[in-house]
C-alpha cells in the first residue's frame, strides 16, 4: 500500500477515487440533496456556473434546462456511475475467474469448450451486443449492470486460464494433491488466490472502461433513465443545450474523464507494485 502511494500515478489515482467516493457517499451533505428539484423553471434555468438564483441558492456548476443544480446531479450521478462500474466489473471478474480457473485446471473437452466459448465471445462486437440487449429490454440500472458484466468477463478468463495452468504445474499444487487434498480445494484455496494479481490490475482498468460504456449507453438513451441522474444521460441532455448552456455537458464529461484516468493510472501503478518483474 505504501509503495502504491509512493508511485505518483498510484497516489493521484487513489486520491481522485477517494475524493469522488467520499462525495458520492456523502452526497446529501456536499450538495443540496435534491438532484431532481425544480423551482421556478423560467427564473432558474440555464444559470451559468458560480451563480446564485433568486431564492439565494448557490449553483457552483450552474443549472440545466429544468433549473436543476448541475453539481448536485453530478454528485448523485457519480453514485450511479461508480455503482454500475464496480458491480459490473465484480460480475465479470466472478465469471471470468470461474471460467478461466475451470478451463485451466481441468484439461480435456471441458477446457476446449470453455476456451472456444471465450474466444467466440471475445470476437463478438461488444457494443452491438450491448445495444441489442439494452434496447430490446426495458432499460434500467440493473439491466445495464447485468449486460456490462456479461460482456466483460472474457479477457479476465483468458488471464486466469494462463495463470492457473502454470500454477497447477508448480510443486506446491502437486504437494497439496499429494497430501490428499481434493482437487476443488486445491484450486480454490491454493491456486486461485495466487492467480489473482493480474486480475486485480485488469479489474482496476476495467472499472474505468465500464463506467465509460455505461455513460455511452445512457447517452444513447439505452442505459440509466432520466430523471435519475447518470453522467451519460446528463451529457445527453447537455447535448441539446450545448449552445445556451455548455456547462451542462462539460461537467459530467470532465468528471468521467477524471475518474477513468484515475482508474487507469491506479491500474498501471498496481501492476508495477504487484508485479515488479513485468517491467515497463
Amino acid at each position: 500500500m505504501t509503495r502504491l502511494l509512493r508511485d505518483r500515478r498510484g497516489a493521484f489515482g487513489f486520491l481522485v477515487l477517494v475524493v469522488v467516493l467520499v462525495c458520492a457517499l456523502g452526497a446529501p451533505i456536499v450538495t443540496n440533496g435534491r438532484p431532481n428539484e425544480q423551482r421556478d423553471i423560467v427564473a432558474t434555468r440555464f444559470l451559468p456556473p458560480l451563480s446564485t438564483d433568486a431564492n439565494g441558492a448557490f449553483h457552483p456548476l450552474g443549472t440545466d434546462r429544468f433549473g436543476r443544480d448541475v453539481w448536485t446531479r453530478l454528485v448523485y450521478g457519480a453514485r450511479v456511475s461508480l455503482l454500475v462500474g464496480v458491480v459490473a466489473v465484480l460480475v465479470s471478474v466472478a465469471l471470468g475467474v470461474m471460467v478461466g480457473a475451470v478451463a485451466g485446471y481441468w484439461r480435456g473437452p471441458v477446457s476446449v469448450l470453455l476456451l472456444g466459448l471465450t474466444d467466440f465471445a471475445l470476437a463478438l462486437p461488444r457494443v452491438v451486443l450491448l445495444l441489442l440487449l439494452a434496447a430490446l429490454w426495458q432499460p434500467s440500472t440493473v439491466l445495464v449492470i447485468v449486460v456490462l458484466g456479461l460482456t466483460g468477463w472474457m479477457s479476465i478468463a483468458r488471464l486466469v486460464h494462463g495463470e492457473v495452468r502454470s500454477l497447477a504445474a508448480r510443486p506446491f499444487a502437486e504437494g497439496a494433491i499429494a497430501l490428499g487434498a481434493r482437487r476443488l480445494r486445491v484450486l480454490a484455496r491454493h491456486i486461485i488466490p495466487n492467480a489473482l494479481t493480474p486480475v486485480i490490475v485488469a479489474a482496476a482498468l476495467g472499472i474505468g472502461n465500464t463506467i465509460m460504456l455505461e455513460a455511452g449507453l445512457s447517452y444513447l438513451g439505452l442505459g440509466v433513465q432520466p430523471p435519475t441522474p447518470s453522467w451519460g444521460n446528463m451529457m445527453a441532455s447537455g447535448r441539446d443545450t450545448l449552445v445556451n448552456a455548455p456547462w451542462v455537458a462539460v461537467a459530467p464529461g470532465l468528471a468521467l474523464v477524471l475518474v477513468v484516468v484515475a482508474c487507469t493510472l491506479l491500474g498501471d501503478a498496481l501492476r508495477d507494485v504487484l508485479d515488479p518483474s513485468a517491467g515497463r
Partner: protein
Amino acid sequence: MLARLGQRVLAGIAVVFGVVILTFLLLHAAPGDPVRLLLGPNATDAQIAAQRDALGLNRPLAAQFATWVGRFGRGDWGTSIAKGQQVRQLLADAWPATVRLVGLSLILSYLLGIVLGAVQAARSGSRTDTVISVLSVTLFAMPGYWLGLMLVLVFTYWARWLPAFGAAGFDADYLSGRAWLVDRLRHLALPLATLTLIGIGGVARFVRGSMLEVLHQPFITSARAKGLTERRVIGHHALRNALTPVVTLLGLSLPALFSGAVFIEAVFAWPGVGRILVEAVQARDYPVVMAATAVSALLVVAGNILADLLAGWVDPRLRGARSA
C-alpha cells in the same frame, strides 16, 4: 500459410454465424412487438394477426431462421419494416461511409500513435515523456461522443468553421470537382478527428511499452556499439521490432474501433452502418438489425484476418508458426 488462412476464414465464418444466431434469438426473446409498433396503437387484433402472417412471424423460430439464412445467402436481405426500403440497398449505401471513417481514423491514429510512442520511449523519463503520457492517458479515458460534442462546441458553435453533422451538405448534389471534395472533407473533419484522437492514446501507450522492452535487448546495445546514430537505432532497429505486437493490437482493436464508430456515427449523424443499427434497434426493425449485425460482424472478422496477415508480413517468424 494457406492452410492457416483457410482455418482463420472458417473460424471467422463460425463467429459471424454465431453472432447472427445470437442476434436472432435475442430479437425474438425480447419483449416488444414489431408488428404493434408498425401498425400503431389503433390496430385491431385481426389486423395484427394478418400482418404477422404476411411477415411470416407466425412460423416456428427454426424455420424463420432457416428462411432468413437462405435468403441472406441469395442476396435477398428483406425489406425494412420501419422504412419500407430494401435492407440491402440501405446497407450498401451505408457501409462505405463506415469503412471510410474507420479506415482513415485507423491509419491516422496508428501513424500518430506510433510516432508519439516511439518519441516517448526514446526519451523515456524525460519531461516530453511525462507530458505525452498525461496526454495519451487523458485521450484514452475520453468517451468519443463527449469529445465529439466538445469539438462541435468549439469548431461549429464558437468558431463556426466546420459542419456538425452528416457526410455532405444539403447542396452536395449540385457541387462538383473541388467544391464537392471540400464539402466532403469539411464534413469528415470532426468525426474523423474525434475517432482518431480517442484512438491515439491507446496506441501511444502500447507502442511506448513495446519499444521500451525492445530497447533493453542486446541487439540494440550492439547496434549502438557499431556506432549507428541514435535516430537509426530507434527508427530502424527498435521500432521495426516493436511493431509486431502493435500490428496484433490493430486486429484486436478493430471491434473496439467499430464500437467507437457506432457512438460517433450517432453523434455526428454520419450515414454509416452504426447509425442504421442504432436506429433499427430502437425501432425493432428485425430485418435491418439482423443484416446490420451480420455486416458489422463480417467487417470486424475481415479486419481481424487482415491484421493477422499483416502481422505475418511484418514478422516473418510468425508465418505459419503461430498456432493459438
